[in-house]
């Protein structure tokens, strides 16, 4: 009933091809955006903005990046965190070394440097497939972090190898409050998410999917796998790079290369698998799930059991429940949270009058 599309006729190609063809989706999206752009900054506490929403948004962007590569183009990668690092350090250096570099341009340039590095490490994908490729991308992960620590130029010769992000200024307005940083992050993420959504519906996106489903067959019908794979690596790394730059500028402020370690790469991979491989919505859901679940467990643990249990046990129990929930989720819905939403939508077409 809620999702019934009966009576919504498409009279032109534009209408048929629009990003949300169903009116309910359009309305829902507008409400959602209004909620996050207007209501959240007004009512959310600093804790929610700074510790939850900003990182969830940034990780969503990184997850979209990885999803483009893994979910749409079928290339498994374990180096997303390293590309985030390239983005963060790239943006930092562009803004440090070029006077008057506009913030948004700096972020984009950071993303572009990540894209460049991504293409270089994507080259082996032309020959290597599956888990072999995944392990090979670990070379990128370890090498990039090593290089950022090793060559002091990247961190402007700081003795400890960390960089402190400059103040964010756009057209003279300084983004210092949590609300403004949140809105900036949200705006960037929204724009790039929309671009991604359109990209995967375009010719490029269809090429990726063709290569994902079977690259030999794709080649036979005239798609150049090299171009498709490398463009997927470039776009994916660009997204990760932008996410990395935001991570440094709107979230942490001061970052060290080791912060972008293998754990973070895995975390981003969890996000897309739990959220849904090959789904932009899934990237958001997965990021929210992976960021929020451990925190929720920690809070619940402290408020319910608290002092009743030996201190180390609580943390271990959180780990056990976290691991157990991941397995449980995969068994119940191997295609991720995005698929659950899809199923829910199908149900809602008839609900509450199923007959």
């Amino acid at each position, binding site marked *: 009933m809620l999702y019934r599309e009966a009576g919504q006729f498409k009279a032109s190609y534009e209408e048929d091809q629009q990003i949300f063809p169903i009116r309910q989706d359009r309305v829902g999206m507008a409400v959602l955006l209004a909620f996050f752009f207007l209501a959240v900054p007004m009512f959310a506490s600093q804790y929610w903005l700074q510790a939850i929403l900003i990182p969830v948004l940034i990780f969503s962007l990184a997850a979209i990046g990885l999803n483009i590569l893994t979910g749409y183009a079928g290339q498994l990668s374990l180096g997303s965190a390293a590309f985030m690092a390239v983005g963060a350090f790239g943006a930092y250096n562009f803004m440090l070394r070029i006077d008057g570099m506009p913030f948004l341009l700096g972020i984009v340039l950071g993303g572009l440097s990540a894209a460049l590095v991504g293409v270089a490490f994507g080259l082996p994908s032309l020959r290597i497939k599956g888990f072999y490729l995944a392990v090979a991308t670990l070379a990128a992960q370890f090498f990039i972090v090593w290089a950022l620590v090793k060559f002091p130029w990247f961190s402007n010769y700081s003795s400890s190898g960390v960089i402190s992000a400059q103040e964010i200024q756009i057209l003279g307005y300084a983004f210092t409050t949590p609300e403004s940083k949140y809105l900036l992050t949200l705006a960037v993420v929204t724009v790039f998410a929309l671009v991604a959504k359109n990209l995967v519906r375009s010719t490029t996106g269809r090429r990726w999917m063709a290569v994902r489903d079977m690259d030999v067959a794709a080649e036979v019908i005239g798609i150049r796998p090299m171009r498709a794979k490398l463009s997927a690596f470039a776009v994916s790394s660009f997204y990760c790079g932008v996410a990395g730059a935001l991570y440094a500028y709107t979230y942490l*402020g001061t970052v060290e290369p080791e912060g972008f370690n293998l754990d973070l790469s895995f975390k981003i991979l969890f996000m897309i698998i739990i959220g849904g491989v090959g789904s932009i919505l899934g990237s958001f859901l997965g990021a929210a799930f992976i960021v929020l679940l451990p925190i929720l467990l920690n809070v619940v643990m402290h408020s319910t059991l608290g002092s009743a249990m030996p201190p180390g046990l609580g943390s271990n129990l959180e*780990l056990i429940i976290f691991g157990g929930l991941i397995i449980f989720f995969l068994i119940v819905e191997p295609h991720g949270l995005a698929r659950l939403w899809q199923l829910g939508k199908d149900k809602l077409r008839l609900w509450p009058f199923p007959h």
Partner: protein
Amino acid sequence: MKLKQTALIGATIAGLLATGYASAQEQFIGLASYRVGPFGSNGASLYGGWIDYMAMVNARDGGVNGVKLTWEECETEYNNARGVECYERLKNKGPTGNSVFQPLSTGITYSVLDRVAQDKIPLVTIGYGRTDAADGSVFPWVFPMITTYWSQASAIVNYIGSKEGGMDKLKGKKIGLLFHDSAYGKESHAILDKLAEKHGFEVQKIAVANPGNEQQAQWLQIRQAKPDYVILWGWGVMNATALRTAARTGYSRDKIIGVWWSGSEEDTIPAGDAAKGYVAAGFNVAGANYPVIKDIQTNVYAKNAGNLEDKNRIGSVLYNRGVVHGIITVEAIRKAQEKYGKGKPMTGEQMRWGFENLDLDSKRLAALGATGFMPDLKISCADHEGGGKVKFQQWDGAQWKVVSDWVESDRPLVRGMIEESAAAYAKEKGITPRDCSKEM
């Protein structure tokens, strides 16, 4: 779905956050601890000591001038993003908010560095963190107390000098530096290069890739180069592996000098016999024979209220380091109360004053039952380090034995470097350093 889910979780967390506030005469201390993950074992001892000390102050004295200490742990897993979440979560708890943040992780320290000044919460990093933050005029909210990495490196060189019979004997000597290849390990480079230039010794830097559980190549290089001493700048599994590999390549363990994050039972016990003779620096010593530890045993463990799972760890290096954290936190509260009103909980801003005017002289340490347990300490507006002294301990196969008195660092040299680095930071960030002569 997303909206619903977020709202639902939001409601749950908000509900949980709202519970548990207590009466006004309590001082809240947020503990961003780690008890799982690669360093969980270190965290258990450190936070155990710290919590036990605070529990002891509550049990023995009824708190600080009647203000009970309360605390809450938040698991960070030694992960920066989780650390930030913990910082934000703990920030507004208790009647006056979180009064001090001590993450015991350099990564998390950097991640919250910009936030503490905004939120007016002192960030105390004892023996880790950002070295140049010791310049309090540029970093008013950060306190890398007791000693920084640079002071420590300098103290280690001074100790080697004294073993050789004078600093002039260092000329022409070769010192190996086996360091964890990360920001943490790199902290040692600048200072050792300076010292090498000054005293005329040679530094050979050898990197160990994270996590450091395989060091055959490095120790064969050391065997080839035959340095007179090796400074071990490691963390976690790297330390035990270094000692094991040193033993198999025949490098004498009493020529290896570890930094304080390399010198705990967690590092020597897994190395077994290979650790015998190994020397390490520490800004606190091991052992349970100090009155302060005795007090913890009688007031806390005798009542079955201790925090440690394994009571044999009482008196271990990291446990005692946790106690030092406890002592400094409690003494800062006491100091702040002297100015802002006894028997009242302190805000973060008031605590900052307490830390900045902390003065633990030998008399005060004796009263605390910590003579010889930790160095005396005097913090000022400009100097957020205060002291920079370390003791050296040797592992005899079963426990740590103190083998030196408090060894000073080369203060003028270290301080000069700190000020230079802090000034560069201030310039980059556009900070005007405050004028310490106007502070009281």
